[in-house]
């Protein structure tokens, strides 16, 4: 699908599929609007007042017409619905082995944290042909991460994580927009996504060393905030151990079960009383207002790394 390329790049694996859907919608629209307009024009001209065209009696209603007018649009619409829903499902299903990158939005900039600790503002460097999963949150109001060349968009909310996954298929520089109105400089909350060849990307990573990987920074914060006092391996306090926690189901005190994902860990840090693991007392203090969104993401990365290490023999 390169019909649209001349207008706007198709730089992600989803872009071509979205464009195919849009092309089909264009065809349907032209047929419908054009067809009906033409019909109206023909009727109106042929039977304009005073014309000699035959008139004769016409029925005031027709059950056949009514059936067709419900049936035909219904079939066309159902077809489009299913097509679009399947694509949407693909968009929302992160491919395995995706490279997880953290995005923190604030008025009016995009802050990016790479797993190896590289940080950038309003720029996102990613390797081509590798699935990417952005884990996004906002420090203040709602923003929206929009890259037209990828045909993707996801709102970024304060107080929770949203994710956006895609696979860039073409190297180059692509515009990043904030698409949800966020205040004074909303229209200047823009950035650039730079898709690089894998080798250029490793060069870039090497040339921009961060302050250690996110997991390492998270480990330092884990001690700094005193988390290790209770959750550490040698702690005597009755607190849940975090090794092997990430990605696994957790039984809660109220009998429900949740998966320990980024959101669960974030909530447990900020609102510890809301999801207490079964068998523990709610003694953990809330860290609300004390940990920045970036630091929480680092703690999540650390806890995640505990689980990854566990899984490796």
């Amino acid at each position: 699908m390169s019909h649209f390329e001349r207008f706007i790049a198709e730089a992600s694996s989803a872009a071509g599929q979205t464009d195919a859907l849009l092309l089909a919608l264009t065809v349907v629209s032209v047929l419908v609007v054009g067809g009906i307009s033409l019909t109206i024009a023909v009727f109106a001209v042929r039977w304009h007042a005073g014309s000699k065209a035959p008139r004769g009696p016409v029925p005031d209603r027709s059950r056949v017409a009514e059936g067709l007018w419900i049936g035909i649009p219904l079939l066309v619409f159902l077809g489009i619905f299913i097509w679009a829903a399947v694509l949407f499902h693909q968009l929302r299903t992160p491919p395995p082995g995706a490279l997880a990158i953290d995005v923190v939005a604030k008025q009016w900039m995009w802050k990016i944290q790479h797993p190896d600790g590289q940080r950038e503002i309003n720029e996102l460097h990613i390797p081509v042909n590798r699935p990417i999963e952005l884990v996004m949150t906002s420090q203040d109001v709602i923003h929206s991460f929009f890259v037209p060349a990828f045909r993707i968009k996801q709102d970024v909310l304060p107080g929770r994580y949203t994710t956006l996954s895609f696979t860039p298929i073409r190297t180059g520089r692509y515009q990043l927009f904030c698409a949800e109105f966020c205040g004074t400089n909303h229209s200047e909350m823009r950035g650039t996504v730079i898709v690089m060849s894998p080798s250029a990307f490793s060069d870039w990573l090497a040339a921009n060393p961060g302050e250690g990987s996110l997991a390492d920074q998270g480990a330092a914060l884990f001690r700094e905030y005193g988390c290790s006092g209770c959750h550490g391996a040698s702690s005597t306090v009755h607190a849940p151990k975090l090794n092997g926690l990430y990605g696994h189901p957790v039984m809660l005190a109220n009998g429900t079960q949740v998966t320990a994902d980024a959101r669960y860990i974030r909530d447990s840090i900020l609102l510890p009383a809301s999801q207490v693991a079964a068998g523990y007392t709610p003694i953990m203090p809330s860290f609300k207002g004390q940990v920045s969104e970036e630091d929480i993401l680092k703690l999540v990365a650390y806890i995640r790394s505990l689980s990854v290490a566990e899984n490796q023999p």
Partner: protein
Amino acid sequence: MTTIAAEGAPSYISAGYTLRSWLTTRDHKRIALLYGVSILFFFLVAAAAAAMIRLELLTPAGDLVDDDTYNKLFTVHGVVMVWFFLIPSIPSTFGNFLIPLMIGAKDVAFPRLNLASWYIYTLGGLFVVVTLIAGGVDTGWTFYTPYTTMFSNSHVILAVTGVFIVGFSSIFTGLNFIVTVHQMRAPGMTWFRLPLFVWAHYATSLVMVLATPVLAMTLALIAIERLLGVGIFDPALGGDPLLFQHLFWFYSHPAVYIMILPAMGVVSEVITCFSRKPVFGYQFMVYSLLAIAAVGFMVWGHHMFVSGQSMYAGMVFSLLSFLVAIPSAIKVFNWTATLYKGSVRFDAPMLYALGFIGLFMMGGITGIWLAALAADVHLTDTYFVVAHFHYIMVGGAVMAFFSALHFWWPKVTGRLYPDGWARAGAIVMFVGFNLTFFPQYIAGYLGMPRRYHVYPPEFQVLNVLSSGGAVVLGVGYLLPLLYLWWSLRRGRLAGANPWGATGLEWQTPSPPPTYNFASAPRVEGPPYAYQAGGTDGR
């Protein structure tokens, strides 16, 4: 306003000339005119804001106004256009004027409540004017939290108070219409003899009555949250910003049907009159109107496909949105079929109505694009959406408003307007509208986000086209103001039924007397008893 002595009873206009007689009137026709003047004022306010926006967007840089001012301009444009023009536009003016006439009643069921509605509207409007004088509001008409409750530094509370108040005007108008249609019909005016205009307003009123309180309460919660710093929408306070979006769109999507259903009613009357044929599939049209109103309540989540709402919720809302498009499509098909073997005349109201069908189709079909999940991911929050809803609300609702204005002007004022000018106005408006908004579809597909004060230079060509079109559109709106003003003073007398139309409203003098009919009408047959090819009554 000049009046003509009606046969026998004095017309509603000559019933009193003092300001007091207008401000204390209970006559639905006079209240309709009070609304007419008020919504014209707010239309001009919002149009001025739109003009500033289009001027600013001529260049990619922010050179006319600064960013905060720009944000306030599009907010006031949206707030005023939606709540102070579009929602009351057809119902409060033509609905108010015509429903009692069309069903053969002397007035609406609760005339004093009707007048109170106008005062409530005016009070709400006053709050908006005060907001503007105080320095404006910059949240966008959607008032998304937590921006609105915590981060905006503008006059949010004043603005939401204004909208809160005007909501009650809408609720009481809807209530009045529902009771009127149920209880006040003339003998013989059965449900399936009601003109489609009345049916459309009945469906609209149901939406007004059931959706507006949700908006009112939601805005009240916004104001409290902003005032006290505690509430259920701000995540920093333990609240949920998506809850706000759900509640807001639970009202604001049906609100689109508050705008478009009355327009459909107008167009049904005009098409059948100027085709001189009964409307095709009358009952089918009625059921379509009711289906739109009912299903319209279940599709609000399609505004939130990328908001963080769950994927499966998105799928359900998407499917329902496709379903609500079907009754709209049916209406277009039926209007087209009404022309078939008719005796079609191209008077100004008909040109506006045909323009409505074209633009409404464009707006409707692009609604299908936005209901399609994967397409919406790319298109939402871009200029594609802006173009889409302007095709529905301005291309649709406003074209229909002008169609109604030209169709019933002789009934309201007793005077005719110069037909040539009126036809020219319809064409200029149609062309100007397309020039303004079609480029925005393309800009949106190319990725230009909405509510952008400055934008990347590659979008400039499309924006210049759009701004140029807006000048033509502006001329299209000014023309009717001029020749209709002329018509008030110099226009020929219209007589009771200048179009040879069939509705009850045409069986009484123009302008009608205070209690509408000299003697209570009795209805003997179905509506739209036109004879194709027969005499056109002129």
